């Protein structure tokens, strides 16, 4: 994203370590946006054919209501917006509005990039939004699992393994019982099983939680891969052709233009994900359970003194988290293509973890993070299908690069729950 500005950036950062006074975080970010904006205006501007238009449509197809923009002009214009925001931050004018300025700068950069990419083509905004939500579902559920565990003080790096196990169980039991609902339940239980192993080993046997999570991922990869080779692949008609959840249109609401097709025309798992975000948010902040969870995650000794059973709260949260992540895994198989494939979660568990950190351990923040990465993924697959000049292999890097940028640059100083990762030993 930064391109030629990178060397300058690292110099600037190196300097700022010595003199912290002038080079605040906002100024550093401003410099990056400034350089990125110049890059966008010049490179994307010049690369865009002069007389093409970029068409953004408010539907899933090329026709219908839409906006036609002269591609080159707007590629440059959005780059300039990015430059202006960057300059403002560098000059110290926007230091109170870091989040908003960042959002504007990043959006402008992305739009400039899009004007270049879809010059002479079209971008169906509604289709893109649908795809974003669809691809974000496993991430949303995975990061919710993380929220539940980590707010109570247990780090969950095993989200990847839970997604994979959920996806596997969903496909397997869905096929055996010829029912997507059975698959969904089995997927939840599969994720819950990994969650239970994590809970017992982390809480009872005090194993380092990050190490444990990574090893459980390897374990889940091994078990699902083994069973896939042993049973699923040789006999895929019986074991790997689960029925899938169709799209459930909510009457009336689905007919609202733009919002309707995006929000109210999804599979049951997507609705479940959105509902769970709301439930977990409310539960964490408004219920006794939520208060206890937060207490245990921040100061277990104090919570214990007040009679809260620290380990019990942690067990319950980690296992419930596993169940939720298992449902997220189901979204990969019975909520989508149906078939299971080896290692099909492809790092989504770790992206969910990044979304969790990006969202500062809150369910809504995690939702925002998950949507961001879902967007990167959706954009990637659309541009690939459009035969973009950028090689498709580089486009597939987009979600991963977005994750790194988010964790490295946009998040800033984060604070995990104080007791996160520390086993509680009653003294």
């Amino acid at each position, binding site marked *: 994203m930064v391109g030629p500005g990178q060397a300058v950036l690292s110099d600037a950062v190196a300097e700022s370590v010595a003199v912290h006074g002038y080079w605040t975080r906002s100024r550093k970010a401003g410099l990056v946006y400034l350089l990125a904006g110049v890059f966008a205006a010049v490179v994307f501007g010049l690369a865009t054919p002069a007389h093409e238009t970029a068409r953004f449509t408010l539907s899933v197809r090329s026709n219908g209501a839409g906006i036609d923009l002269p591609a080159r002009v707007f590629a440059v214009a959005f780059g300039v917006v990015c430059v202006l925001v960057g300059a403002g931050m560098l000059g110290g004018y926007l230091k109170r509005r870091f989040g908003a300025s960042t959002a504007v700068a990043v959006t402008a950069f992305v739009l400039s990039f899009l004007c270049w990419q879809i010059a002479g083509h079209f971008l169906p905004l509604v289709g893109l939004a649908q795809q974003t939500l669809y691809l974000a579902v496993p991430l949303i559920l995975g990061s919710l699992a993380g929220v539940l565990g980590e707010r109570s003080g247990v780090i969950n790096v095993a989200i990847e393994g839970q997604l994979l196990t959920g996806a596997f169980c969903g496909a397997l039991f869905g096929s055996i019982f010829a029912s997507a609902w059975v698959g969904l339940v089995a997927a939840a239980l599969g994720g819950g099983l990994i969650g239970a192993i994590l809970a017992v080993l982390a809480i009872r046997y005090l194993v*380092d939680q*990050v190490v444990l999570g990574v*090893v459980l991922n390897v374990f889940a990869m091994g*078990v699902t891969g*083994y069973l896939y080779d042993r049973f699923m692949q040789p006999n895929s008609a019986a074991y790997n052709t689960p029925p899938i959840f169709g799209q459930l249109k909510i009457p009336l609401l689905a007919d609202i233009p733009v919002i309707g097709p995006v929000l109210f025309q999804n599979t049951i798992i997507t609705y479940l994900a959105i509902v769970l975000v709301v439930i977990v948010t409310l539960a964490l902040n408004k219920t006794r359970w939520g208060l206890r969870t937060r207490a245990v995650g921040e100061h277990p000794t104090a919570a214990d003194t007040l009679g809260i059973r620290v380990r019990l709260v942690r067990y319950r949260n980690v296992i419930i988290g596993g169940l939720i992540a298992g449902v997220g895994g189901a979204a990969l198989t019975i909520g989508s293509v149906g078939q299971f494939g080896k290692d099909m979660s492809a790092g989504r568990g770790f992206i969910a973890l990044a979304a969790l950190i990006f969202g500062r351990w809150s369910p809504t923040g995690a939702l925002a993070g998950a949507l961001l990465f879902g967007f990167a993924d959706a954009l990637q697959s659309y541009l690939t299908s459009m035969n973009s000049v950028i090689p498709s292999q580089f486009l597939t*890097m987009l979600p991963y690069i977005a*994750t*790194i940028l988010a964790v*490295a640059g946009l998040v800033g100083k*984060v604070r995990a729950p104080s007791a996160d990762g520390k086993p509680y030993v009653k003294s």
Partner: protein
Amino acid sequence: MSSDDEKPADDSGAAGHTPGRDDEPTGQPTPASRAGDPDAKPTGGTPKAQDGKGGTPKARDGKAGDPRRTRTAIVIDALTTANTATVTVLAVVLALVVGALVIALSDQQVLDSMQYFFSRPGDTFSAAWQAVSTAYAALFTGSIVDPETLNYAWWGMASWTQVLTPISETLTYAAPLIGTGLAVGLAFRAGMFNIGAQGQAMMGAIGAGLVGFVLPWPPVIGVIAAVLGGLLGGSIWGLIAGWLKAKFGAHEVITTIMLNYIAAPSFVTWLVVQHGIQQPGRNDPISKPVVDNAQLPHLFGSGLRANLAIILVVAAAIGVSWLLRRSTLGFEFRAVGSNPNASRTAGINIDRTYLLVMIFAGALAGLGGAAIVLGNTPNSITPSVVGNIGFDGITVALLGRGKPVGTVLAGLLFGALQAGASQMQVTSQIPLEVSTIIQSLIVIFVAAPALVKAVFRLRAQRVGTIGQNLAKGWNG
């Protein structure tokens, strides 16, 4: 420390000694307890895995400490106490037992005979025994030696090459694992969890492969250049993660895994289909093969796959051991690993340390990747050339407790497991993933010594476990 030693001695009641007697002569710890010291001690002299090997030195030392105990009693005592060596061995046993269950329960004949389990339970058990014994026999003959071939060779009916094939396979599988294991282990010692060995190994394979076919190299120089290319490729990938951690505080668990996916499949799939890199006449993603002079020479003749890679990684392990124990830089690594804040106060530049650790770690993983491209046919870069060695390297490093010697031993063990697993696939059609399952189980059991202690009812003692330097979570 000394009070720790007495406990098992008292419990065993080997000889009727008085506590007073016990206290007086020792002062120095018995080896059993030394082996049990936690990793966190940065000055820890001898690596544990070495300590824990075999009962003989233990018995001798113990005898010197307390002349009245019989040798047998001391050996039994050492074996039934939950020290690091015992826990490691029992963890392997336990994992193999669970592996056997997995094999038995996924065997078609076992499943068939389970249909009528209650009328003829014997069938199920004999089928299960059949499945497991065949599989584990293949595990042994595929990784150590096949007694039958040995017998034939003895009478001159088979060549010794055939006898040595399993060992050669084990060494071939072990070399890359030791490389990535060292990469993960070194980072561990500096308090970082490098789960990016997979991507670093991929970039190492790319670096080694590109250098290896770009020029018609002369002998010797070609190998050196290609290996250096591998080190460079891996270290660049490590550098990125280290830089992100040092400058932005980005947690390495997330950045390294993202870098894994960027390296493979994304980057490598693009790279190997480029003109000049793709193998002429091929449509699939595969690069030109490395020239002969840049390939790692075979150690025991062309009939056996074992090559120079194993020597290189052992040399690397010795280098890492020297670095950690004898050099200032290594001291800084360990200091930062033990307590970053104290290190900063003491004047260590911890950002620089993070950067350097990741560069070194990347280079080691790169060596692992290079070992595959330069050592094994088809000697080309493909998207899946490094297999799963990065993730396996995590298990190797965890089992080796981050120590170089332990990592080499763990790498040999897991190399044997993988060599045996591929033999198992041939004879019993058991998927290769069985080795992944067993590996991860071993590490889980080793990481939870309390669990192993409970299963085998061992007496309690402090056991060196893994990840103690890491238990910091996101805020650390």
